[in-house]
C-alpha cells in the first residue's frame, strides 16, 4: 500500500482562483486518498465497462498492475458478465460470385438491460491467405486440453456427435451440452463444477413451442419417394445461464427470421435434487422475440442458418 501512496503524488493546482483553492485542495486530497487505496480504486474501476478498464491501464504503472492483478479479476468475476452471442450467417453454397468481404458476425445480446450499450454491433474480419473465415488460430495450449467423457443418456443409444445432434457451449462459467433426443426433445447437460461428469440441468420439450409457432412447421417433397415430409424449421443456438438469477437463464431458438428467447421454468427437484424441468415459452410476445435483419432461407431439414459463437468478456491479452 505504501508503495502506491508514494507513486501517486499530488499535482496540486498552482494557478487557481482564490475562492476555489480550498475546495480544490480537499478534492485533491480525497482524490489522492482514493488513488492510494487499491480496494476503493478497484471498486470504482471494476464498475466501468471492460473497454474502459483496458484503456485505464495507460493511466500509470500502478493502475496497470492493479487492473492486471488476480485480485481485480476475482472482483470482476463477482459482477454480472455480459453474455452475448456472435452469429455468422452461413453462406449458401451455390452463391456466385462469393462475396468479396469476409463474412461478418452479428452481435446479439440476449439481455440488453444488463450493462448499457452493447460493446459491438457487428464484427468483421479481413480474409487472409485465402482463409475465407479470416480467422486463424494463433496459438493453443496443449497442456490445458483434457478429454471429457461424453455424457451417457439413459435409455438412449444414439451416438452423439457435435454439430448434428449435439451442441456444445459455455455460459457464465458453465459448460453445456445440448443433446437432441427426438425432434422436439432435448436435454441440457451441465458439467459438474469439479469436471467430474455431466448432469442433466434442463429437460427441453418444444412440442408446445411448435404448436404456438406454426410457422416453424415446414414440409418438403422427398425426391426419391415423392412423399411429402414434415420438418421443423428451428434450431437451438445455445443456453445462456445466469448464476445470480436462475430465472433469467434462457434458451435461444432460431426460427425463420427470428431469434426467440425461451425462459426455463424451474420446478422443484424431481428425483435427485438437480433435475430441473424446462418449460417454454412466451411465444409471439414481442419482448422475447428478436427480429433478425435481412431475410434468410430455409435450406434443409435442420434449420441452421447461423454459426454461433459465444462472446466472452476477458481482460486477458490475446
Amino acid at each position, binding site marked *: 500500500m505504501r508503495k502506491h501512496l508514494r507513486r501517486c503524488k499530488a*499535482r496540486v493546482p498552482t494557478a487557481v482562483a482564490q475562492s476555489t483553492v480550498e475546495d480544490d485542495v*480537499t478534492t485533491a486530497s480525497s482524490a489522492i486518498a482514493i488513488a492510494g487505496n487499491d480496494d476503493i480504486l478497484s*471498486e470504482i474501476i471494476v*464498475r*466501468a465497462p471492460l473497454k474502459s478498464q*483496458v484503456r*485505464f491501464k*495507460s493511466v500509470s504503472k500502478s493502475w496497470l498492475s492493479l487492473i492486471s492483478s488476480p485480485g481485480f479479476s476475482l472482483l470482476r468475476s463477482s459482477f454480472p458478465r455480459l453474455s452475448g452471442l456472435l452469429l455468422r450467417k452461413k453462406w449458401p453454397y451455390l452463391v456466385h460470385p462469393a462475396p468479396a468481404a469476409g463474412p461478418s458476425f452479428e452481435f446479439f445480446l440476449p439481455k440488453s438491460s444488463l450493462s448499457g450499450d452493447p460493446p459491438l454491433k457487428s464484427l468483421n474480419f479481413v480474409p487472409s491467405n485465402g482463409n475465407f473465415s479470416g480467422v486463424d488460430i494463433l496459438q493453443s495450449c496443449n497442456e490445458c486440453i483434457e478429454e471429457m467423457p461424453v455424457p451417457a443418456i439413459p435409455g438412449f443409444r444414439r451416438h452423439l456427435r457435435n454439430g448434428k445432434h449435439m451442441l456444445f457451449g459455455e455460459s457464465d462459467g458453465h459448460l453445456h451440452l445440448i443433446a437432441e433426443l427426438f425432434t422436439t426433445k432435448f436435454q441440457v447437460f451441465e458439467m459438474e463444477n469439479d469436471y467430474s461428469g455431466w448432469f442433466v440441468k434442463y429437460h427441453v420439450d418444444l412440442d408446445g413451442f411448435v404448436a404456438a409457432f406454426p410457422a416453424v412447421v415446414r414440409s418438403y417433397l422427398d425426391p426419391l419417394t415423392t412423399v411429402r415430409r414434415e420438418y421443423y424449421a428451428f434450431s437451438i443456438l445455445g443456453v445462456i445461464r445466469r448464476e445470480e438469477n436462475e430465472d433469467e437463464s434462457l434458451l435461444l431458438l432460431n426460427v425463420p427470421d427470428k431469434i426467440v428467447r425461451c425462459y426455463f421454468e424451474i420446478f422443484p427437484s424431481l428425483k435427485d435434487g438437480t433435475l430441473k424441468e424446462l418449460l417454454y415459452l412466451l411465444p409471439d410476445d414481442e419482448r422475447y422475440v428478436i427480429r433478425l435483419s435481412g431475410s434468410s432461407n430455409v435450406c434443409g431439414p435442420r434449420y441452421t442458418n447461423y454459426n454461433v459463437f459465444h462472446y466472452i468478456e476477458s481482460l486477458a491479452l490475446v
Partner: protein
Amino acid sequence: MASSIENNNEKLTLKSSDGEEFLVEKHVALQSTLLQNMLDSDCSSADVIPLPKIDARTLALVLGYCKKHADASSSKQGELNSFDSEFLKDMDMGALFNLVLAANFMEIKGLLDIAAQKIADTIKDKPHQEVREIFHVENDYTPEEEAAVREENRWAFEGFP
C-alpha cells in the same frame, strides 16, 4: 441485535472531522457496519463517536442516505432506486470522492456501490490522460512504455487521442 430493537429510539452523537456534531437515531446509524459493530461490542459508552476522516458536509450527506434507507421498507426498492439516482445527480467529483471514502470507512455497502458506480460512469468515456488528472495520479510511464501499453490494447483506444 435484540438490544437494537429494544432501544429503537435511542440516539447517538457522531462528530465530524471539523468538529460538527450530528444527533442520529440508532436504527439509522445501523446502516453503517462500522457503527453497528461498535454498538454491538458496546464501545459506544462514550457519548460522542468521533469520525476523524469525514467532514461535516459529507457526513450530512451520508446520514441523509442512511436515514432514507433505514426508514424505507424493503418492498419499496423502486422508490429507493430513484432516491439514489436523485441523491447523486448533481454531485461533483470531489463530493463523490468524499462520499466513497466515507462509505468505505463507515462500511455502508449500498452507498459505496452507488457512489463508485457514479464515478465509474463519469470517467468511463474520458481519455486516460483526463482520468489521470481527475485522480491526481502522476504519469510514471516513459513515452515509450506508454506507447507500448497502448499498442498492446489498441482496440480499446479507437476514437481516443
